[in-house]
């Protein structure tokens, strides 16, 4: 499914860029998105009228090329930054774990975790790292959330019997994660104050309602969809079945014989 979306986003992007280039070339002005990017880049360049058609087509092509190449650079820069942040937070988390803080948090949240992630046994490290990720998200500490989230995925993967297929716990974790359990949206409030708001916390009530609705939808959707035959877990190869069952109390007999539903 990601493959298809990847293809369509690129196709739509390139074709619409080309289409708009041609349309605005006939009108003799720059497409609005290209003009905006140019104005942002050098701060000058007032959008001129009556440009030559060739110049408009060239500029819209150059715009898309820049965006594509820029992405590669940004991605690597992001990773370099992430190395340091990951090391810092995972280091601190390891101290917290050794001091028993993570276990205490996991114990307090155990009933909820059992219901959300029935396949993750009590006391498993994945419980702790998932909770750390969700707490960091809720408190608006975005750059701390990613390291904990990636560690949670690693911990969940140790419970996975089919290494290239995601488990129910992973789907539930990511669905809750993307639905954003934000209680203190620091960055958003900062942006509002920066834009001169006299009512910076005004949207808080609406925001809490909206995020509750999206998180509830995420939980219901992940639980319900995981039971559909087309998303069933594939059959587990018999050679790892023996010890795998210890970690997963629920028998998966209902999935037997159902074909893997990935498209």
């Amino acid at each position, binding site marked *: 499914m990601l493959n298809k979306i990847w293809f369509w986003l690129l196709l739509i992007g390139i074709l619409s860029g080309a289409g708009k280039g041609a349309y605005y070339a006939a009108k003799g002005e720059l497409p609005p998105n290209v003009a905006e990017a140019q104005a942002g880049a050098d701060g000058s360049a007032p959008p001129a009228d009556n440009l030559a058609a060739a110049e408009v087509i060239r500029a819209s092509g150059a715009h898309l090329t820049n965006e594509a190449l820029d992405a590669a650079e940004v991605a690597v820069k992001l990773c370099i930054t992430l190395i340091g942040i990951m090391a810092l937070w995972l280091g601190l988390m390891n101290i917290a774990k050794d001091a028993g803080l993570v276990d205490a948090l996991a114990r307090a949240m155990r009933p909820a975790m059992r219901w959300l992630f029935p396949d993750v046994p009590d006391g498993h490290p994945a419980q702790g790292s998932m909770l750390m990720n969700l707490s960091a998200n809720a408190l608006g500490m975005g750059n701390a959330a990613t390291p904990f989230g990636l560690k949670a995925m690693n911990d969940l993967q140790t419970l996975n019997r089919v290494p290239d297929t995601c488990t129910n716990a992973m789907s539930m974790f990511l669905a809750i994660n993307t639905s954003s359990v934000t209680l203190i949206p620091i960055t958003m*409030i900062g*942006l509002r104050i920066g834009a*001169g708001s006299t009512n910076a916390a005004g949207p808080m009530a609406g925001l809490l309602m909206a995020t509750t609705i999206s998180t509830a939808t995420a939980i219901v959707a992940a639980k319900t969809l995981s039971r559909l035959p087309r998303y069933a877990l594939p059959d587990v190869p018999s050679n790892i079945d023996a010890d795998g069952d210890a970690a997963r109390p629920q028998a998966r007999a209902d999935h037997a014989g159902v074909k893997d539903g990935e498209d």
Partner: protein
Amino acid sequence: MNTLFQDIAPAVSQWMVPALILLIILAGFIKKVPMYESFVTGAREGFDVAVRIIPYLVAILFVVKVFMGSGVFGDLKIALGWVMTKGGLERYTPSLDLIPLALTIPLTGGGAMGVLADTLTRHGPDSFVGLSASIMMGSTETTFYVLTVYFGAVGIKKIRHTLPACLLANAAGLISAVILGWVLFGRLCPGP
């Protein structure tokens, strides 16, 4: 309430990280944890993961940037505005200014922050569009970025029902943000 929040919220947010670090090292001190070694052991794990996700990051950022750079969102806004006016829903066309934000949020979180900042300066943070956009920003988060990076980090290829579940959550958040915007702040919006 407002001045209180304006003054205190940034201060509290700046002290959240130091306070958390203090809590962790105090707990470590009480439990006699060899802190320095414990930190290094944990930190080592971070490096591998960060390097492993580079190809996934390039793949997702590349397609997102090309898609957004093409200005499709602006075109969609014009098209939908035309349809809504024809369909007698002209009263609700101000919500169309939220389209760039609504479509950016599932793609990339950082990009969405940029779009929100742009929306707030363009329409004013306390206008109908500004307030609705703020609700929308907090209602849901990026799906594609998180999915590619998190699954990439552990080498999962078959993602089963994860994408539909995440997109349903996104849609629920975005739609409720638009509706809540009208319910809570509709009075700020003059009729056509």
